[in-house]
């Protein structure tokens, strides 16, 4: 890696202010949208706006847009592990009613051969 690549990128003040204004605007939008009845889409919109805000903070305020590849890999790996934790937890909790409750063995009597 040359020292040119490693040199710290100085983000202009204008970029910081622009990101700040975008974050404030998105906060206003997410609050306003919550008062409109969109059904299940309310949740999707609220979380989508939160993810956009997070990306703005991570990329610009936290300088990840300009940081080393190894740092980015660590961050992506962190979110990937978070996704594993959430997906595994929900794949259990949200599918429990897919299988019937366990009952006494006698519920099988009508479908068992007559010899029993």
């Amino acid at each position, binding site marked *: 890696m040359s*020292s040119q690549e*490693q*040199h*710290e990128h*100085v*983000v202009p*003040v204008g970029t*910081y*202010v622009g990101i*700040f204004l975008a*974050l*404030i605007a998105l*906060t*206003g939008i*997410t*609050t306003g949208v*919550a*008062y*409109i*009845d*969109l059904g299940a889409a*309310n*949740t999707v919109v*609220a*979380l989508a*706006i*939160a993810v956009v*805000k*997070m990306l703005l*903070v*991570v990329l610009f*305020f*936290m*300088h990840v847009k300009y*940081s*080393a590849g*190894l*740092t980015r890999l*660590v*961050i992506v*790996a*962190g*979110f990937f*592990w*978070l996704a594993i*934790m*959430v997906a595994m*937890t*929900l794949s259990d*909790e*949200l599918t429990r009613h897919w299988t019937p409750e366990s009952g006494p063995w006698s519920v099988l009597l009508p479908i068992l051969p007559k010899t029993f």
Partner: protein
Amino acid sequence: MADMAAHSAHPPGFAHQFEEMAQQRAAGNLGMWVFLVTEIMFFGGLFATYTVYRSLHPQAFEIGSHLLEVQFGATNTAVLICSSLTMALAIHSAQTGKSKSTIIGYLIATMILGAAFIGIKLYFEWYHDYVEHLVPGINFAIRPEWGHAGSQVPMFFCFYFFMTALHALHMVIGIGILTVLTIMTARGRFSSEYYAPLEVSGLYWHFVDIVWIFLFPLLYLIGGRYGTGVH
């Protein structure tokens, strides 16, 4: 790569095991991000549990969510975003070699905004919740108008208090770190070459901001603010 001449003339704050300042900076940022990943998993466990309980008791969580005051949640979101801007500008001032008083000004502004966040949370929200008998374990009173979902509303408030208190604890730690940074800046420890403590503390401060960016919609907004919340 670094010959003896360069070694003897190393800038303040430069540790000997690194070949050049840029390498030290990259290593410091990487280390801070590894810590922040553990924080992501730490808060992530709470978010996952919140999601499970919300799916189990959607009505109770909607009732609970409607009992929170959106204007304070939204105001606090804006306060935190302002504090992230002042933190970023403090680091920018150090990077571009601005005067000590400029950096200290931005650091103090960040601390004031952080303290304002905690003040709004304590006085306008937690104290109000206490008066309204909404604190599980202390004085929670289930209201008859909530119907059969009412018995699960305390569960929402358990999540609310635990998540917001854990976040506020991170803010208090952040203000402590900023105090140390202010003293270090006043003592002239930083330059446009060396400002790593400012930079990694900034990462922490922005991370705490991101946690709130998710807590605000999850606690105050999801399920919508239209209607009364009681079906």
